[in-house]
């Protein structure tokens, strides 16, 4: 398997990550370059400040949460393999491949994508998006433009829409159901990882 692994040699755990995440060697190389690009001081790991250099994240209302999703609990840094593992969520699903009894859910399945998104909103990780969590997001997204009262009614309304079991919070199932018709596979995919 000569030359392909030689190019992968530069990437730590290249082969292994490749098999694990489904990325091709080319993608990994590219991601690694990106990683090194973000890693300004060549420490071999990224800090949250490094992520903030990405304008797409700094502009995003929930950007800090997305950045937070890269970090394992209690850790200040993220190394390349976990970086790739998180990004594997955003690998587009292959269209023409019927996964008839294939592997267990890969990270880029619809369910895992949704779960990833869900965790972004579920701040306290209790498996439910509560009203306060919704309000936080809304405040970040709408800001001063809308009165507090309206914000609250939006949050109430959103919960009311999605909440099936009337516990005033959105569980993952309810979240999934409410987004049933949204094309998650498309929305949560990064094109160049095709």
């Amino acid at each position, binding site marked *: *398997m*000569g*030359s392909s692994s030689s*190019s992968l040699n530069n990437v730590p755990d290249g082969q*292994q*990550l*490749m*098999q*694990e995440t489904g990325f*091709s*060697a080319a*993608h990994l*190389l*590219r991601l690694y*370059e*990106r990683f090194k*690009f973000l890693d300004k001081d060549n420490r071999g790991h990224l800090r949250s400040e490094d992520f903030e250099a990405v*304008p797409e994240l700094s*502009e995003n209302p929930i950007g800090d949460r997305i950045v937070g999703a890269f970090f*394992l*609990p*209690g850790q200040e840094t993220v190394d390349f393999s976990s970086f790739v593992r998180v990004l594997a969520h955003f690998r587009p699903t*292959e269209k023409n*491949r*019927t996964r*008839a*009894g294939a*592997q*267990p*859910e890969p990270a880029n399945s619809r*369910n895992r994508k949704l779960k990833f*998104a869900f965790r972004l*909103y579920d701040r*306290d*990780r*209790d*498996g*439910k998006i509560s009203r306060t969590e919704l309000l936080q*997001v*809304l405040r970040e997204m709408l*800001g001063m433009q*809308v009165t507090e009262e*309206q914000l609250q009614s939006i949050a109430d*309304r959103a919960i009311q*829409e*999605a909440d*099936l*079991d*009337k*516990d005033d919070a*959105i*569980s*993952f*199932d*309810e979240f*999934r159901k*409410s*987004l049933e018709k949204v094309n998650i596979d498309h929305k949560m995919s990064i*094109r*160049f990882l095709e």
Partner: protein
Amino acid sequence: MPPKRRNHDIIEVENVGMDVDAEPDSDSEEEARRRSRNRRSKSQRKAKQVSEDEDEDEEEEEDEPPRRRGRRKTTKTDEDETPQRRGRGKRTKPQDSDEDEEGDKRRAARKGSKASKKKAAKETSDEESEEEKVGRKKAGRAVSKKEKEEQNKEQKGNVKGKDGENKDKKKKKKMSSSSSSSSSDSDEESLSEGEIAALKEQVEEKKKLIATLRNKPWRMNKRLSLLKEAQDFVEKFEGALGKGKGRRLYAFKVMMTKKLIKFNRDFENFKTACIPWERKIKEVESHFGSSVASYFLFLRWMYGLNLVLFGFMFGLVVLPEVLMGLPYGSIPRKTVPRDEEDTAMDFSVLFDFGGYCKYSILFYGYYNNDRTIGVLQYRLPLSYLLTSVGVFGYSLLVVIRTMARNANEGGDGGDEGEFIFSWKMFTSWDYLIGNPETADNKYASITTSFKESIVDEQENQKDENIHLRRFLRVFANFLILCSLGGSGYLIYFVVKRSQEFAKMDPKTLTWFENNEVEFVMSLLGLVCPPLFETIAELEDYHPRIALKWQLGRIFALFLGNLYTFLFALFDEVTAKLETEKSIKNATEWALHQYYANYSSFYNTTDVPPPKVAPADVIRGPCWETGVGREFVKLIVSDVQVTYLTILVGDFARAFIVRFLNYCWCWDLEAGFPSYGEFDISGNVLGLVFNQGMIWMGAFYAPGLVGMNVLRLLTSMYYQSWAVMACNVPHERVFKASRSNNFYMGLLLLVLFLSLLPVVYSMMTLAPSFDCGPFSGQEKMYDVVIETIDQDLPAFIGNIFIYASNPGLIMPAILLMILAIYYLNTVSKAYQQANTDLKKKMQMAREDEKNRRNNKDSTNQVMKDLEDLMPDKSLAPPPAEEEKPPEVVIDKSVKPTKTKPGTAEKGVNVQKEVSLAAPNPRRPVTRAPGPRGGPPGNTRSPQPQPGKGRGQGAAPRR
């Protein structure tokens, strides 16, 4: 936070465990050993965690394998999984280092078996008949494994080698180019390893399908078509996995498709970038909502229409006359008369479209009545008439077509209203936005769309006193009818008075009496719209509907405006026709005298025409040019007024409010003057009536269309700047209907109204005798008749004679009415069918949902299908053994829990559920997820309402 996070991490690890268990070929002892170890290590870890967590995970493990095992699996996937397992194994339990070796061994063995299968399948795929294939396959399996293994490896090595080459190339490229270009890289590389793997898998799958097709419980037709499909596929892609030429060809193909896709994408982007003002309008929309944006969309549409009309007018009328017609100054109609020459270049005259402007190609009078001009024998008069009619025809066509298309579009928005707010909240952000300005716009647009939804929602939830509302609405309409009638009478009265004034000597009249009509009109235009708006408050409609009413009412008011304008114009025309008649008579008499004198003096019949400079010729008033000038002046003054209003009413106001606010005694921004809102109804109607003027005036002033194009162009920029700079969004931002068919309807009405006077003048009024393309004719349309008589073969003339026979026209009209009736009926029937189908689809979808969510089904096929469905619940369904407690809990807890306080619908649904629970084979109307809850419940039943079945994730805390 941190402990929770770790929790989630562990879950992920458990998922890995699940993966491992999902191995289909788990019968090997190794596997079993491994799994048990796996579990052991897991439980060690888990001991640190909360107990509930553990339960759930174990449940996962126990539940998953049987389901998975039931599935057919390709051996290929095993190969994929092994390393994966290895990788994760390292993470979870670094202590077993022998793991890797084991994995490798097994992998090698598998590869062997896989290779044999593959080879067999490959062989078979060449054969035609199914039976043979199966037979062969069996034989193929018998072939020694080793041989195949070698082959396979070789093949693989080859593939990899190629890949490596590709990659090396790519690497070089990357080094040279900057690392930031994203998509181009992936395009360069034609076949990545992952793709090859995927492809192999697919080919494998297809082969498997071919092999097992005989045993499938499908119809013969389906089997045959599937077989064909699979064979084609295998044939096509086998080459890709093989050596040499086939693979290269395939790689080339893949590269080309990728290039094509990229090109298409770029082309789409390019197309979007080419839509004029798309970004401007989007920006306005994001800040002011779709209602304001709908005006700008309308403006843009109008601009497109006018551009086409301008193309017609300019290309078929103006340009030929300029290029091939006689030059300026050659004949009287193309020359400024002597007494006007001194002032012809004065700015005030030019600004009034007198002087040189009046005798230019802008106006009707400039065009010559030669039947053909230039070397091309271009029939200008005919083309003038046909183009003018064609402008109307084209406009009608476009308006009606747009309306029809919009009506189609408006139809399918029915089922969107399910999770409006959730969707908006979770999915509205565009994660590719990296530009602060764009981000600002996106914030604004999200806010606006939320506001729009809030207004819609408020409207839906309005609990109203229907009798009062109805009474108020009738009352409001009554008031508005009164004021409309009053203003109509006022206009009528004033116009009548002005006619009387016109007969008197203008010097005896005061200034007011001279300008009474204009004064009253603008007063009405100023007072009535706000009055209507105030009255409309009574009706309390949704703002979208209120806007339509407002538009309709102001439209009715403005019709009065139009009426007075046309009335005045008509008076002018009749007066001019009178003077023209006398001048014509005088000229003819003079000419006659001249000829008589000349012939008697020189005693010859060969009389040369009188030698008079074109500027000195006595000429008629040329009423068509007069009308054209009126229209042009009106448009120009309209533009001035509109722009000045924006400048003063919006910009100056905003300026004052903004900067005087620092030194003022009350809050100007929040208080009295505040900032202006964008006046949608006024602007739309302005645009509509402006277009009406263009349609009417284009016949008398061909240059008017070009001026209008300029006007629309400038107002697009000017207004979009003004609205962004000086206006604030409406207090109730509302969502405009996606089709602005109401605007189109108004436009159609105005088009029809403006068609009438033009056609009337074409058909009945006599054209001026000394100016314009129709001079010398009795009626304008005589040009057509002349052409038919002289230039077309005789039978066509006959056809026209027959066609204009009333005996033929009456039946034709009758036929048309019948056709309209028939089409109308058909369309109604289709509508009915459409709604029925929609209902059916809705029902089918719900049905399907129910079925899909019913995890209790024991049918193997159904289970397989379910597993294929993309949405599997977060919490896995519990093991079969745990069912009984669930049912018990459901029965005992549910009814008491749900009844108080929940809506009717909720109760119904839940009742169904509790009914369905005892019988696992029945459809359940909710997601599978909730069933994850019961185990938690069995352990610690939570009595408070709302903590019930639906909480798959609750116990995980």
